[in-house]
């Protein structure tokens, strides 16, 4: 059971949909020079309440917003990543047990292993993203003269491609591995149940036609055999 307050909040977040705040805090948005406004089309950030963040710093919010909106740009298929709550999602994940390295073996010694041996850093996910954002912004500053979130749209897409391919050389930090982690957590924020703060208004699910809950199809499997199944998606909060 979700308590009433939380449920109202979740429903409110869902109903707010595309009119919800962008990932930028009011303060930061105001401080952003006009020519460096975030690339993707966004509703006016000033019109909505600012997002409240648990652990991400203003710089990290700006970075993650830029990543979320470049990875998931607003178009006819969905609102932008930030408008879908992706940055709020990332903030909550990194503030919680996952961000703190829950259920991860964290004993040393730590060695750089082969790729086949998987993640071998001593950093928790929260520490990892902090380090990665700093490294990415340092590279962006060196390469383009400014932080990644301040790049013009086309330039930012180019920067992301370089980070993804690993042709961007971060200082003693794997750019491509960092990009993969960012991509993964952005996709989680776009497609996970809205109760985690992302996938607002189930925009990610609507984009692909995923119906969500309750997923009881025994009586429907024959009727929809090779026929399009259309149902307004429902999330966990809708049944709580």
């Amino acid at each position: 059971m979700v308590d009433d307050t939380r449920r109202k909040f979740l429903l409110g977040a869902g109903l707010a949909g595309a009119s919800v705040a962008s990932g930028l805090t009011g303060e930061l948005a105001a401080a952003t020079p006009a020519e460096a406004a975030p690339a993707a089309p966004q509703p006016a950030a000033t019109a909505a309440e600012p997002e409240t963040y648990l652990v991400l710093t203003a710089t990290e919010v700006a970075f993650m917003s830029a990543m979320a909106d470049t990875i998931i740009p607003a178009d006819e298929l969905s609102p932008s990543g930030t408008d879908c709550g992706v940055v709020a999602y990332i903030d909550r994940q990194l503030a919680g047990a996952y961000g703190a390295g829950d259920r991860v073996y964290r004993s040393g010694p730590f060695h750089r292993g082969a790729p086949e041996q998987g993640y071998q850093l001593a950093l928790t996910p929260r520490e990892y993203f902090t380090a990665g954002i700093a490294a990415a912004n340092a590279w962006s500053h060196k390469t383009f003269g400014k932080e990644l979130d301040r790049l013009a749209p086309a330039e930012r897409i180019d920067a992301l491609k370089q980070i993804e391919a690993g042709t961007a050389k971060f200082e003693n930090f794997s750019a491509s591995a960092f990009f993969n982690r960012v991509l993964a957590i952005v996709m989680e924020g776009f497609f996970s149940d809205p109760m985690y703060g992302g996938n607002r208004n189930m925009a990610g699910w609507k984009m692909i036609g995923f119906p969500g809950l309750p997923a009881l199809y025994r009586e429907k499997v024959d009727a929809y055999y090779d026929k399009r199944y259309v149902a307004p998606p429902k999330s966990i909060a809708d049944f709580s």
Partner: protein
Amino acid sequence: MVTKLKEVDAVMVGMGWTGAIMARELTKAGLDVVGLERGQDRIPKEEFTLTQLRDELRYVQRIELMQDNSLDTITFRNEPDERALPIRRFGAFLPGEGVGGSGIHWGGLHWRFLPTDFRIRSALAERYGAKAIPDDMTIADWPVSYAELEPHYDHFDKLCGASGQAGNLRGNTIAGGNPFEGPRSDDYPNKPIKTGVGPAIFRDAAKSLGYHPFPLPVATASAPYVNPEGITLGACEYCGHCNRTACEANAKASANVNVMPVLRTEPKFELRTRSFVSRLLYDKAAKKVTGVAYTDLRTGEEFEQPAGIVVLSSFVFGNTQQLLLAGIGEPYDPKTGRGVVGKNYAYQFEAGGTAFFEDKWMNPFIGAPGMSIAIDDFNGENFDHGGLGFFGGGYIACNNGGAPPIGSRPVPHGTPRWGSEWKHATAKWYQHATGFNTQGSVYANARNFMDLDPTYRDALGRPLIRLTYNGTDNDHKMSHYLLAKLDGIIKAMNPTHYELHQRPKKFTIVPYQSTHNTGGTMMGSDPKSSVVNRYLQAWDAHNLFVLGASVFPQQHGYNPTGTVGALAYWSAQAITTQYVKNPGPLVHA
């Protein structure tokens, strides 16, 4: 300060499928049994419920039901001259934790091995000559035959309420089933799960090529069913959330649903969760174990639990680690080939593909592993390996297990992974894709093994298991062969677009592949070449029985749980009908 507890008749180390089955059979025979489980209790009516099970982030991505790596993990390297490093969070394989173990989050694919699988070394020698088997291929005949296990396979089918189509009923071939399977004494308890759209196209294409397609057998009831324990199972809801998740419908079999409810009411059984067995208490001179030592993870207190019979019923890694730590059986040395504990580690060698059909509605969220279709024409010795340059094989399937969207959004190869083009491709293809896999065998190799890690330790201070594993040339050739056959079938399906997914040359622990880890405490017919005898009794401790896939001499081209369940019943029968009357070695070396 260790508290010594009162002796019991038998203690289980781990309460997954095998611990629950053995505890049930021993209490039925009148023994007092304690079940020790280091994870938490998992009670279906509290935990296997809606809406929480529809939370893909929690179960599929954050792998809630899996082992806590902060307490225990394994180390890994591809080759013996490399430095093994700890798997910091499981990826390629996902052992479960808590009551029910890995048998909660499985997909429920429910297979039997082929009669020839149980005598594979002999079968290969007869067909191709003994010299055809490479020296480093350390495969072995099982010390038990298909015919001996069949009644136990049948019982496990019924315990699970399995659904499928028999292909060989008491020697008679049944149309629509798997004609290659060993003779079954009885049909599946339930009719097959309904076939999905992609698998139906696969079935027709496979038939047109002369193959023998059939519905994938599953331990999931397609209709309400009462199992031999008197437990009522529900019918599969086609929810598409089987993998890595529990089942709220009580349709997918697990120890929690299909065994534990009766065990929980049994006065002769006591369950102790958060009880982490640190070591077996071994009396080498007497060739017996006297019990186990464990730590109560709630308080840190240590206990000794003396027991007449000790049953190792944890996962492959835990079983092997306990024997190595206790010094039971000679550790395997890959340099000399001597020793047995840790030998013949094997795995499942899967590859696959994805096909896109722009004019078909797959509705991939309507899913159940049993909606899949397989062929078995290229498994084990179902086909002639003469001149092929490899042994082994696997079933080939078109899958319909569900597509939760964080993890399952196939787009054609070459599509960007983000941005507007990615969005359009994802929206276009999500409802029009179907996946395939080849369930390849792993024929054991002398260089793949487990031992104790010299550096890394678990939360109790014990050395971790160190896994040294890489794919062999034999297994890569086998996998390429299966993929070529799959390629032919997909072509005949006439998709808009398709692609095949080959295995990387080196095994990696990063992306998920399969939790079908096997070996390390192999069963066999003599103590020189095996750890346990045909009844899963340790050669070096007659009151120690080792259950689970760690006893497999190699891994065949099927999911292992059907055989794991059948072996547990087979071993339980030997204990209750022979061992308790006259404790001692059941097979004389």
